[in-house]
Structures are given as C-alpha cells and as structure tokens.
C-alpha cells in the first residue's frame, strides 16, 4: 500500500513541486539574463545595483509587481480580464509535466539512498529497490505519456487564448490590436511548427518525448543532423509562437504601447510576463528534446567521449536549454521587428510550404530506403 502511494502519489507530487519551483526561479533569473545580455550587446552594464551585479534584481522586480496597484479598467470585462493572465500562464507551466529532464532511471540511486532515511515508512530493501526501479518514481520527468508531443502542441495553443481574451477584455484599442495580431500570427505559425515537428516524428516513430530521446541514442545521432530543415523551421516558428523578437508584433512597444497587456498592471501583468518566459523555456526544452538529444551527451554511444559521462544528463539537458535561451535573447539584441505583412508572407508562403515539403521528402525517403 505504502509502496503504491509512494510511487503514484507522493514522489510525483514532490517532483511536481520541484519542477514548478525550479521553473519559477529559472524564469526569474531568465529575465535578469535577458537584461544583462541585451545590455552587454549594447555595450552597457545592465542591472548592477541590487545585489552583486544585480543578482537580486528578480526579487526586487517580483516585490515591485506584488506591491503595485492592480488596476481593472472601468469599462473592461472584469471577469475575463481577471482570468486571462491565468489562462495564459497555466498552459505554459503545464507543458513541463511531460518534459523529460533526465533519463528514466535518473533518480534511481537517489531514491534508494533517500528512502532508507525514513524509518517510519518501514520499507525493506526489496521494496525500496522496486520503487527505485519503477520509472514512474525514478524518471527524470513528472510523467511520460505516449502522446506527449500532441499534448505539448495542444496545451501550448491554449495559452494564445489568454492573450486574445486579455486583449479583448481590456476594452481598449491597443490591446485589441495586439490580440488580433497575436491570433493571426500564432495560428499561422502553429501550422508550420506542427509540420516541422512531424518530420521528427516520422524519423523517431514515437510521440513520447522520452522515447524520442531514447531513439536518438539508439540511432547514434541527434535529430538535428537528420532533420536540419525541420529544426530551422521549428526554431523560427518557436520564436513566433513565444512572441519573441523579431516576431513580437502582439506586444510591439513602438506601435502598440504594450500590445495585449497595455491595460494590465501589477501582479496580473507579471503573470503575462511569467507566461512569456515560461513559454520561452518550454519551446527551448521541446527543441532540445526533439532535435538536440535531450539529456544525451554529444555522440551518445561513442566511447572516445565517455569521459563526459561524469556530467549527469540533467545538466546536459539544462545546458542545451540555456544555449537555446541565449540564442533567443541574442536574436532579440540583433534583429528588428518584422512588419505584419512580412510576417504573414513568411509564415504562409515560405515556412509552411517548406515544412510540408520536408514532411513529404522525409516520408518518401523513409518509405523508399528504410
């Protein structure tokens, strides 16, 4: 009984708590990283005053958001206005339920060590071994579902709803325009994003993110080398999906004041803010898993690189995600914003046909040669 409770309830709950807390911290410090990096690209210093080199800046920002006045515009639809940030934030966090941070036996040693420290559980060594063997308890992820990619795609598109609702409920020009733009942008780029992912799915033959990584290990190669076109498409469409520059039209400061969050202030605004950064991390994590081998080290099966094995898989994963985020911010410091017609033109006239072509070619090659 206690064994089942541990495997299916307690350990997953602890894992969820760890993931949510870690994610919140990562988002907070991602904002600092962004400010620092953009500053250094512009040969400035960025935040320096709060803590050593501004290391406590995210905490100061969070406090500021909490203490600021929370304004609901007089003619806004108060209910939708209130729930829109939550609708935007929840899916962004939900994606991490299926993101594998490490291999299925990541916590095996840790579990068999730590469970011995709880004498009141009365666990004999065999039970501990069984719990530690079970991937549901010891996997480096919250859960591994066999339709994970589909889950990620569908859940992340719910987040758009929050932006549209927020823009609509504000009852103001700029948020509405931002929301209209975001709906058009996200709908058009989600198509190309989906097709880019299909290329990987054809090669991997699975929708489970864990299995996709394991397949990359079996085939001795990261899928970015098998599907380079799909990766470039995924990256560009990921930028567009997360509203990052050069695709940040929904919140174009220079044209739309703040875009969909113009009327938001205080804590509600910070929820939108969190959602944007959580989405960034989510897209990076999915990209790393699909194309850059998740927790695998470079050339996962070659012996001459086995000295790299002392670095645990989680760190490989987080390092790769960090590289992704770095490039995201780097791009923001480099490129100007697209015009709206350019955005639509690229989305429908270039990325979608190329993604479709990639799917056809991949499927054809797989059919003909494998």
């Amino acid at each position, binding site marked *: 009984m206690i064994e089942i409770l541990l495997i299916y309830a307690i350990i997953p709950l602890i894992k969820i708590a760890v993931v949510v807390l870690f994610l919140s911290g990562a988002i907070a410090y991602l904002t600092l990283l962004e400010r620092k990096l953009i*500053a250094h690209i512009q040969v*400035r210093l960025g935040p320096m005053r709060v803590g050593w080199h501004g290391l406590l800046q995210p905490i100061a920002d969070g406090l500021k958001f909490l203490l600021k006045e929370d304004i609901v515009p007089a003619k806004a639809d108060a209910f939708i206005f209130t729930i829109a940030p939550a609708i935007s934030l929840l899916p962004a966090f939900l994606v991490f339920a299926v993101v594998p941070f490490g291999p299925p036996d990541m916590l095996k040693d840790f579990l068999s060590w730590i469970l011995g420290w709880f004498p009141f559980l009365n666990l004999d060594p065999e039970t501990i071994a069984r719990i530690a063997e079970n991937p549901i308890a010891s996997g480096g992820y919250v859960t591994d579902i066999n339709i994970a990619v589909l889950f990620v795609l569908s859940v992340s598109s719910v987040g758009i709803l929050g932006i549209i609702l927020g823009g609509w409920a504000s009852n103001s020009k700029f948020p509405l325009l931002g929301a209209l733009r975001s709906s058009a942008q996200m709908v058009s780029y989600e198509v190309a994003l989906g097709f880019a992912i299909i290329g990987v799915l054809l090669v991997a033959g699975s929708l489970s993110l864990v299995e996709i990584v394991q397949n990359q290990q079996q085939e001795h190669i990261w899928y970015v080398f098998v599907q380079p076109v799909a990766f470039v498409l995924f990256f560009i469409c990921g930028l567009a999906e997360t509203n990052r520059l050069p695709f940040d039209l929904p919140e174009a400061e220079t044209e739309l004041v703040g875009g969909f969050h113009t009327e938001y202030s205080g804590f509600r605004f910070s929820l939108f803010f969190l959602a944007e950064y959580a989405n960034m991390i989510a897209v990076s994590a999915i990209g790393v898993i699909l194309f850059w081998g998740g927790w695998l080290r470079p050339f996962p099966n070659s012996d001459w690189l086995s000295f790299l094995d002392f670095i645990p898989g989680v760190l490989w994963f987080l390092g790769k995600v960090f590289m992704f985020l770095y490039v995201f911010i780097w791009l923001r410091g480099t490129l100007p914003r697209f015009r709206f017609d350019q955005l639509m033109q690229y989305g429908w006239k270039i990325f979608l046909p190329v993604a479709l072509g990639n799917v056809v070619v991949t499927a054809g090659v797989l059919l003909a040669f494998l």
Partner: protein
Amino acid sequence: MDFLKRIFFVDILKGLALTFRYTYRKVYTEQYPLEKPKLAGRYRGAPRLNNDPVTGETLCIACDLCAEICPEDLIVVGSQRDPESRKKVLTHYTFDTSRCLFCGLCQEVCPTNAIELTQDFELAAYDRRSMVWDRKQLEKGWDRIHFGKDYHK
C-alpha cells in the same frame, strides 16, 4: 547566389556575429557615483586657492590680476598693506562658482599660481548663497594638488 544567401540566412548570421562581438567587449558605462569618470588633464573644475606647502601661508599676493581679467567679474580680492613690510596682505577672497564659466583666465594670469582650477566638478549646492566660495572654502581644495610655476607649461 543571392538565393543561397537568403536560404542560409547569411545576413542574419552576419548580424549575429556582430552583436556577439559586442557582447564581450568592454562596456562604456561608467558607474558615476561609484567610480569617478576619467577627466582630461586640462579639465577645468572647481577653483582652489593654493597655500605654500612648506610654510602653509597663502601664495596669493593680492595683486588683483585675477579679479581684473575675470570676464564675469566674480572674483573679489580684499587686501591690506602691512605697515611694517609694506607688502599687500590678503584679507579675504571670494569666488562665485555659480557665475564662473571656467575659462581659466584667472589661473593663466596668476603670477604665483595661487588660484587654480582643479578637476573637481561636483559643484552642486542647496542654495545660491553657498555657491559663493569664501577664502576658507577655496583653500580646502581637492586631493590632487599641483604647485610650482612650471605647472601650466
């Protein structure tokens, strides 16, 4: 060729390379209140009335040349003739920093290098009256001290 350039995002990659070079360059920002800016050697800032480093007496001989040449007429030199040595002795000296244009003519004309424009530039005050510096304040000066006639050459 142009087509290949667009396919492989050559221009975007060039831009990225440029910003990457700038990322790890030395920053231009000076954190002003924490670190003082580097001023040019000939910068002219707050005035100071120099004392002789050996005797501690003022170098000013009350010749009134600085007050004469000052385009703003902001220097007032008060003197008294010593009845024994028949020398002029400085009694008071005021310098109105609020009107000073830091042209440096006073230090150019001073025969003993008594009046000098130092590199101290933080001259803000809470009221106008305290921007008129008297002799005491002018003699306090700043930590970087230059003496000797060859200083200006």
